[in-house]
């Protein structure tokens, strides 16, 4: 078999969380009783006209800045014409010729390496409704609540070469959307969706292969699986001497397969033309600049800072930075300067992340504060309490929202570092475990850990573990 290279481009659709819809004043929120969050405009009733919600433009421009795009201060909206029951006007208002944002890029970290993915464009458009199926009714039902929910479509260049890179790109996009606070990014509610374009070519070949577009990719995991499936399918065809047909395919995540939706021959002609009901979008340069200045420090910059300033590994830095809340906590903790950033990182990625995952609560909804966490870590670093004890304290902190020092006091967790006391303890343990001592002397070095563990156990976890280890080792060599 020849060596192949997979080429991937992604079109990400993100619903924006503006208060109202893009072309009317209906509330923009997920769910609701079907066809209740609608008005003549978003239902596409005869005679109703769209008026642009300016917040949508602002949100999109902020995303454009975050992805290093050129912002078109003069652009327009176009109609994309096609028939479908969830599209009540039979056209979607979108942007064809001139998008709001163009020619950007996003640096992603995949397999420990930075890679630049070019962003072709970001444009604004309206979402369509949803088809529902009900057993009590033989046909399909239409819910128009989602009609007119604002979307941005972020189109990448075909710059990704593996499903891992695609995943890293999607993670990064999602993270930026959350940092900007412009989308809820709830894949299960469909507020973040993507179309995946895949082609393969022989390694080293210049021209791109024929691509297939995959629709109905509803999770990042599905994106990864669909890319792997599609690459394999295409390589299989080429290896068998066939040629790839350009087509749109539907990903079926349950079956783990994709199916042809339409071929190039029956590709639709959307007959784009300028939307005559809406004026030209004109942005003041001062406004564009103000929006640029409103962009917070983004995950990419944070990763670099954490690596450079704190010595985190790329993976650690990314695990913190891509998670807005973790990064906020880390930044607040390091600001206090009470303990080592590396210790904070370890705590956030272990106990804090675990608590958040287990309870399903975002960090901000827990009693945890930067002050509390750093005080706790400080006690460990100072040797006042052991790591084990600290875990115990953390659990109580999350339970009761008490100060760590109070908890340590109350539970009597202060570590015992009294040398005489510890020596006495070690002597006792060694006497009680003569066999282990013997094992150690016969070369079984892991007996050391066992003996340390026994000391800790007898002390009720309060003995200073570093000192115990030192004393045990010393006594074994006597």
């Amino acid at each position, binding site marked *: 078999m020849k060596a192949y290279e997979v080429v991937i481009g992604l079109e990400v659709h993100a619903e924006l969380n503006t208060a109202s819809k893009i072309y009317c004043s209906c509330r923009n929120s997920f769910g609701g009783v079907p066809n209740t969050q609608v008005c*003549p405009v978003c*239902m*596409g*009733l*005869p*005679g*109703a*006209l*769209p*008026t*642009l919600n300016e917040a949508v433009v602002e949100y999109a421009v902020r995303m454009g800045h975050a992805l290093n795009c050129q912002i078109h201060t003069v652009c327009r909206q176009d*109609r994309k*014409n096609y*028939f479908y*029951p969830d599209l*009540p*006007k*039979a*056209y979607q208002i979108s942007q064809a010729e001139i998008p709001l944002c163009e020619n950007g890029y996003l640096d992603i970290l995949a397999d420990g390496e930075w890679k630049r993915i070019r962003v072709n464009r970001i444009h604004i458009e309206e979402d369509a409704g949803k088809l529902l199926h009900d057993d009590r009714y033989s046909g399909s039902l*239409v819910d*128009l609540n989602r009609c007119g929910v604002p979307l941005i479509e972020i189109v990448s260049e075909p710059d990704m070469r593996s499903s891992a890179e695609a995943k890293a790109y999607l993670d990064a996009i999602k993270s930026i959307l959350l940092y900007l606070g412009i989308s809820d990014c709830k894949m299960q509610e469909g507020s973040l969706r993507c179309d995946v374009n895949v082609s393969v070519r022989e390694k080293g070949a210049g021209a791109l292969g024929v691509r297939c577009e995959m629709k109905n990719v509803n999770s990042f995991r599905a994106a990864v699986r669909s890319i792997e499936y599609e690459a394999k399918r295409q390589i299989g065809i080429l290896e068998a001497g066939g040629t790839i047909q350009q087509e749109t395919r539907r990903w079926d995540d349950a079956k783990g397969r994709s199916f042809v939706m339409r071929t190039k021959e029956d590709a639709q*002609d959307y*007959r*784009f*033309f300028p939307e*005559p*009901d*809406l*004026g030209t979008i004109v942005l003041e340069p001062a406004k564009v600049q103000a929006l640029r200045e409103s962009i917070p420090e983004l995950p990419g910059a944070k990763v670099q800072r954490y690596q450079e300033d704190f010595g985190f590994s790329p993976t650690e830095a990314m695990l913190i930075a891509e998670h807005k809340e973790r990064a906020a906590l880390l930044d607040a903790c390091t600001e206090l300067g009470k303990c080592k950033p590396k210790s904070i990182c370890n705590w956030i990625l272990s106990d804090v992340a675990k608590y958040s995952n287990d309870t399903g609560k975002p960090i901000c909804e827990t009693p945890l504060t930067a002050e509390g966490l750093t005080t706790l870590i400080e006690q460990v670093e100072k040797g006042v309490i052991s790591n084990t004890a600290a875990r115990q304290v953390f659990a109580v902190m999350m339970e009761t929202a008490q100060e760590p020092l109070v908890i340590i006091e109350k539970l009597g967790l202060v570590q015992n570092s009294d040398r005489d006391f510890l020596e006495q303890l070690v002597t006792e343990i060694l006497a009680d475990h003569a066999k282990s001592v013997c094992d150690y002397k016969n070369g079984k070095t892991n007996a050391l850990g066992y003996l340390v563990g026994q000391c800790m156990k007898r002390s009720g976890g309060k003995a200073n573990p570093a000192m115990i280890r030192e004393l045990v080792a010393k006594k074994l060599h006597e």
Partner: protein
Amino acid sequence: MKLYRKTASELSAMLRKRECSAAEICKDTLARIHVAEDRIGAYITQCEDVMQQAQKVDKALAAGEVLHPLAGIPVAVKDNISTKGIRTTCASRMLEHYVPPYDATVIEKLRRAGMILIGKTNLDEFAMGASTETSYFKKTHNPHNTEYVPGGSSGGSAAAVAAGETILALGSDTGGSVRQPAAFCGIVGLKPTYGSVSRYGLIAYASSLDQIGAMGRSVHDTAMLYSLICGYDKMDATSVQKSYPDFAAACSADIRGLRIGVPKEYFGDNVHPAVQAAVWKGIRLLERGGAVVKEISFPSMEYAVNAYYIIASAEASSNLARYDGVRYGFRAEKTDSLTDMYVKTRSLGFGDEVKRRIMLGTFVLSTECYDAYYKKALLMQRRIKQEFADAFQMCDVLITPVYPTAAFQPGALAEHPLMRYTGDICTVPANIAGLPAISVPCGMTEQGLPIGMQITGPHFAEQTILNAAYAYETLCGGFPMGGAV
């Protein structure tokens, strides 16, 4: 008392002097409809609450409330303007039973002013046509001679005004649909500047060209109605943010020094000699009133119709795509798939002319044809706008015929399919350039059919063209109501 023969201005004064009541005006108008409607066929739907509306106004007047000058005056509305709770059909089978859940902005304004909504008038299906013959429901007849068409597409509104079946009416004008039926029926019809009247609730034919217009039996009446409906509307992104004066109050017949441009291209061989003569007679009358007349040239005019039909059809193909049988309107029965439902619904729901324009529009927007047709039409639009701008450097208004002929008989356009479109040559340039233009009666043919004169002005120069029209009306001694009915 034949109140229905009076103008809105007269009735407004009488109401305030208690010489008549709104109920009397309405009763008289309804009686007139009862007599004339069989022969005219102006209305698709007549409102059932006319007398109640009138009593409300009378009660307010009796209570001494200060009402809008048009309170208590009957108005008919073209049936492509959305009226809450009153079916709005666009004269199409597609919307035969469609009842809008909201009022168009102009309807809100009429209601707030206390005007009496009499009914919804007939039109060419979806406003596509020049004779009101493409209506799914009925034919409307010209009140001056019922053997002739009333023009179109606002033929129902024009005929209703001319026949006394209403005092005032709203029409819509995409390529001449207010001005041409006004000319055919011998009344006044104003197509305002694009963006001066909200289109919210006007069921779109061609969004960038459509504009709601006012129709009446006098210039002053028409100005009153226009003053009521114009104004910025936040619901219409193409409406222009500016303040508008009371055009009726400011009407002046003093046109001394007014520079009238007469573009020779509008008086070509295709324009009937009787029309040419009547319009020139009108121009000379204004000249005697103190205006200065200049012959000018408008070279791009011959392309205006082509550009118009490309742009209008393109937009129509998209605007009318929503009539798919899914949510409201007509849906074909016994269909076996989604595509089948779409195809049968649209094949049965639309008439031939609408289908013709949808197909034309779909064609010119297709990827292969976009540059060759649609893009070129937009370039031509830019050139036409420029030529108007140049003309308005030299003159204040342009005076031209409204239509190459007076009213014709039903079926005449069917025999000359191309004339269906080329006849619009005098009216479409104003739509393409978004300019205000007014049609006023300027004489009759030998057969006793009215002829119209068109006065076009620069953007937002409604007052200028209304003044010119008002001066003409004054100089010629007013427009007779007349007619065979």
